[in-house]
């Protein structure tokens, strides 16, 4: 009887472990979530609470909804509790298009002089989409403050990657970087309608060399500005 019970427990133990193993074949799913948690913790440490940003944004602007007419959005309500993330839909029109009051990028300028001190290039670590240091935070705050004080100023934020990553994926990563900067600017109080994004992926390196120094220069977000008169 004692032996039977012991064997039964052993069998039950195997069944439980087998179930655990099946969970573990999706281990990279769990790792991904874990990595995501660490990244979010780092972001909060650098940038402060997202709740503060959300509150500021909500009181200042009415966001253009991601469920607007121009596309049919997923109804991913099931994720809202699991992830706290603030995303901001793009402005309805793109500069240079027929229905836009803004010209194309050819009329946007690289900031010079005093403006170059405001609109500094923001840099990233490898595979990351949050700016890498506290200097970047200062830049984001200055840019946001400038945009708030100058409602006729419109900007393009470009997202760029270094040469090492895959080409197509880097186009998507560049998109994430420029949207990350845009989100931070909006959380600092900038008007979403003043900020447009462009991803260049790794198509337009600032430094064409292929070494660590060049890679660091190429993982960047840059600004171009246009003042509407």
């Amino acid at each position, binding site marked *: 009887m004692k032996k039977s019970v*012991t064997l039964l427990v052993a069998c039950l133990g195997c069944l439980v472990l087998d179930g655990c193993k099946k969970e573990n074949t999706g281990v990279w799913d769990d790792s991904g979530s874990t990595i995501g948690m660490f990244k*979010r913790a780092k972001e909060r440490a650098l940038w402060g609470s997202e709740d503060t940003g959300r509150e500021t944004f909500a009181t200042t602007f009415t966001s253009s909804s991601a469920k607007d007419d121009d596309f049919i959005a997923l109804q991913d309500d099931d994720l809202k509790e699991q992830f706290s993330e603030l995303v901001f839909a793009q402005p309805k029109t793109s500069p240079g298009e027929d229905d836009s009051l803004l010209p*194309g990028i050819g009329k946007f300028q690289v900031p010079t002089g005093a403006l170059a001190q405001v609109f500094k290039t923001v840099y990233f670590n490898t595979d990351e989409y949050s700016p890498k240091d506290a200097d970047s935070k200062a830049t984001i705050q200055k840019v946001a403050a400038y945009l708030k004080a100058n409602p006729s100023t419109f900007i393009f934020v470009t997202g760029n990657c270094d040469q090492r990553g895959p080409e197509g994926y880097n186009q*998507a990563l560049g998109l994430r970087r420029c949207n990350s900067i845009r989100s931070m600017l909006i959380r600092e109080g900038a008007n979403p309608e003043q900020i447009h994004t462009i991803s260049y992926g790794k198509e337009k390196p600032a430094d064409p060399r292929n070494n660590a120094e060049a890679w660091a220069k190429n993982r960047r977000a840059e600004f171009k500005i246009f003042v509407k008169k």
Partner: protein
Amino acid sequence: MDRITLLLSALFFLGSPLFANEPPQEIRVRLETESSLSPVYISEVEPTGDTFPSSYLKELEKVIRYDFQYNGKTTVPEKTAEKERELKLMRLSSLGSVYAISLLVKNKTLHCKAFLIQKNAAKNFPEISLTGSLSEDRKKLHLLSDAIYKAFFESDGIASSKILYSFQKKDTLGQWISEIVESDWDGENVTYLTQDSSYSINPVVIPKDRGFDKDLFLYVSYKNGQPKIFIKSKGESTGKKVVDIRGNQMLPAISKQRDKIAFVCDASGRTDLFVQSLNPETGETGTPKQIFSYPRSSQGSPTFSPDGLKIAFVSDKDGAPRIYVISSEPGRKRETARIITKKNKENTCPCWSPDGTKLAYSAKTGGIRQIWIYDFAAGEEKQLTYGPGNKENPSWAPNSLHIVFNSTDDNYSDLYVLSPEQPNAVKITKGPGKKHYPAWGPR
């Protein structure tokens, strides 16, 4: 007795799947066809009458020799004086080949006769008037190669198919520009399809259909700033925007049925996957539909299954970029994406084969990006390429056997073609400038 019980319990644990959770031995295989290459003897182009210089005729001969060397079915043995004599004397069994092609240019007209040696069969092909313009005559010879291929194998060849790609270089002001260009499958006859002096990349060939044989393609243009997707006919000077949605649109793909396009877009503020219906002829489009979005992740590089019902795409939602498959027509809730690539990190740029059996993609292997395929029937990932150079953006030929891709290192980015049964990929582009994002078009 208690010790035996404990031992049995331990054995149960040891035998449990927990301890069997070790990765299987990796098996490297090459894409293999069922048949090996058959030799086809190709004669020297024999001139008679008032014709072109011998150097020109040699160039024409090279076209046919290339088409039959790399078509995946045949190999071209060296010409010898003895074999040329045997061919003229019609002693074909002495050629040591399964097939033979004899070429004669008489008064600027090319005459071609092909032989199925083992079956004692021969076929004369329609005469071809040569123009003396190598680019024009190349096109005619590629069509001839396909006609001969069809006669030999009763299936369509790829010699007259085209490859589109992005060509990046610096302009006179030192700014990066990129245009869409097209070449023959051997890399020759390069023609510019866009000349915006802007930044155009990611060409996608729109499949032809009965009654609609206009050569249309999609591409991404940055001419106004944000990348947008355009459609263009090869004969037109400007393209027309096909996706009318806020934000950036990139990395387009089109279904084989040519009724919908997939693309990546940040309209919502995230890097999401969208699908939109499209009629390439009328330009009529539907409302774009967000079909995959995941917080704090990027989606990229969609490719349709041949039946148009599924999309394979790249996502980094679980850490490193992997390739997943979802329905191309999901409901309003995010679908659970089925993971395809498990062996390697950084799996990107999937391309579904026209016959639906395989997915070609790039995966970081030992620190270098190599071309892999996923075999849906076997459920296996197989490495195709080896050696230096980061290889990406594979695109299948219409025969689902050949693959074109770009390979990049510090000094170059060029296109290569993988042919079945050939040990090495063949480089088809040359010269300065970055050639990438190839798209293999139909014949």
